[in-house]
């Protein structure tokens, strides 16, 4: 019980610290809200070009605006899961503050959770804004269970966070040039069907590229969320997607924590913990 209180206290300390740092750059905070409003509005107007002009076999894409507005905020969330720890490590290394943090009796899992916490708070707010603007300004209606959508959100974010821990391990030792951020970061937008149906890839480019889309966890996360929020499917209908994500998590999370602990040890051996 004491350990949990201690963990929550430390997570709170990181969130408060990052909030204080964020409000020290006030303009950025408001510009981000404005940019989400612009993106949502732009997507709405693009979708109006196609309104009622074509019939699509892809059920989730009958209203492209709805498909985009359900994918973008969640992709944003997943990417935070993927990149937040590596970014935090890079930022602490480049500022030189990692030494200060690692001089305190803080464990590696706590560091992993706590240093990403603010990014998740921020991403939750930004993702909410996408959905809110869609609903309040452009009349989007979401179906299905929000709890089920949140389950997909959590599971996919944890899977991406596990890959993110591997990416942070790379940053810890090699500092720059992380191949994972290139592979997962850029390919997720293309392969996971954020802007167009992922099935189009296998139908037009062949089954091996279709296989790649299935390898990427965000494909299953976004598909699951759309099934719930657009098609109104139930737990029984989406359990296949949940199962795939759970398997990813079961393998990647312990593996990535093990790699991260080793990379910290290696950086300590090389004396490069605070170098960038």
């Amino acid at each position, binding site marked *: 019980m004491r350990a949990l209180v201690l963990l929550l206290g430390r997570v709170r*300390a990181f969130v408060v*610290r990052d909030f204080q*740092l964020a409000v020290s750059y006030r303009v950025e905070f408001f510009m981000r809200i404005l940019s989400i409003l612009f993106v949502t509005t732009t997507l709405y107007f693009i979708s109006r070009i196609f309104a009622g002009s074509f019939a699509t076999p892809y059920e989730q894409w009958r209203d492209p605006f709805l498909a985009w507005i359900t994918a973008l905020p969640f992709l944003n969330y997943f990417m935070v899961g993927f990149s937040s720890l590596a970014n935090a490590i890079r930022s602490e290394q480049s*500022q030189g503050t990692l030494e200060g943090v690692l001089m305190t*009796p*803080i464990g590696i899992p706590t560091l992993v959770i706590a240093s990403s916490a603010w990014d998740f708070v921020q991403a939750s707010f930004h993702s909410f804004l996408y959905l809110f603007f869609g609903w309040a300004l452009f009349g989007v209606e979401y179906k299905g269970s929000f709890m089920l959508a949140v389950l997909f959100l959590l599971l996919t974010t944890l899977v991406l966070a596990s890959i993110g821990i591997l990416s942070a391990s790379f940053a810890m030792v090699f500092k720059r040039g992380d191949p994972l951020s290139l592979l997962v970061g850029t390919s997720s937008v293309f392969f996971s069907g954020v802007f167009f149906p992922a099935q189009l890839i296998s139908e037009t480019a062949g089954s091996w590229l279709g296989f790649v889309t299935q390898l990427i966890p965000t494909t299953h996360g976004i598909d699951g969320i759309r099934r719930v929020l657009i098609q109104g499917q139930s737990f029984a209908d989406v359990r296949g997607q949940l199962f795939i994500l759970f398997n990813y998590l079961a393998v990647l999370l312990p593996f990535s924590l093990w790699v991260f602990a080793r990379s910290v040890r290696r950086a300590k*051996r*090389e004396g490069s913990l605070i170098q960038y």
Partner: protein
Amino acid sequence: MSAALSIQNVSKTYPVPLAATRRLLRMKERAPVEALNGVTLEVGEGEVFGLIGRNGAGKTTLAKIIATLVQPTEGSVNVRGFDSVREEERVRAQVGLASAEERSFYWRLTVEQNLVFFARLYGLGSRDGARRIEELLELFELTPLRRRRFGELSTGNKQRMAVARAMLNSPPVLLLDEPTRSLDPLAAATMRQVIGSLARGPRPVTILLTSHNLAEIEELCERVAVISRGRIRAVDEPHSLRAAHRNRERVRLKLRGVDAERALELLRAVQSEESAQFAAEQLEDDLVAVNFERESEDDRLDRALRALVEGGAHVVSCETERGTLLDVLETFERETGEV
């Protein structure tokens, strides 16, 4: 006295990054950097222990190994019974490190916000943390600056912040890496008082102090280790180290009534008997300084004074300076060929 810090045969060699890849690509090979070699030390509970050495001698690496920020290549470090590699979190709870690295704070946060953040990481609750921060701000005269951003502080105040942070959780072991380096003389004196009082307090703190200020080390430390090229060359009490390495003292006389040339002429009788070298310099029109060395408590000063006074010189002042730790350091470094 039981050992608060036990350092056994610690060596640290920084490997060349990506050495295997460099070999594979037949790139020019670089030699690994040997920072420490077979360092063995014990520091007792409540002892103030000094570590002196030139830049790059291995002082900071040793402090970082004790604080678990760097792992030793060989050997072990034990802090109050906890191993620095196997039980690093427990070691960090026992140790506060104040390094000279001012980048380890958040520059856009205020003094107080920085301390609150680190207090939480040390596991201090809101009330305990606030009370401790209040005490430390007071102790280091930072209270008027509490709402000032860290980046706006002077270098000296940043240094005080580093020591304050190291003391947040009242650790039983403090590692102070050049704690007065950027402080003005008054602030440095206050810092020395604080360090001294910690060791003499009701719960004596064990302090490992590295410094280039040898007077400070002599004033504060019960024992001193001389480190050179990653090896400990000697460990002893400061006065014993001085005595063992330099039983001589420098003498400086200021005279009126004679010029530099006449002073040397008068001293020639003394000089002819001994190998001592007298040097004289004209400071002002009627003021001459004579410098020489003598073995402690020999009669050369007596004979020099007599010769000068009988020759018509008026002795204005006589200053003597015993061998310092600087002499000790220089002796060891001459032996290892560093100077």
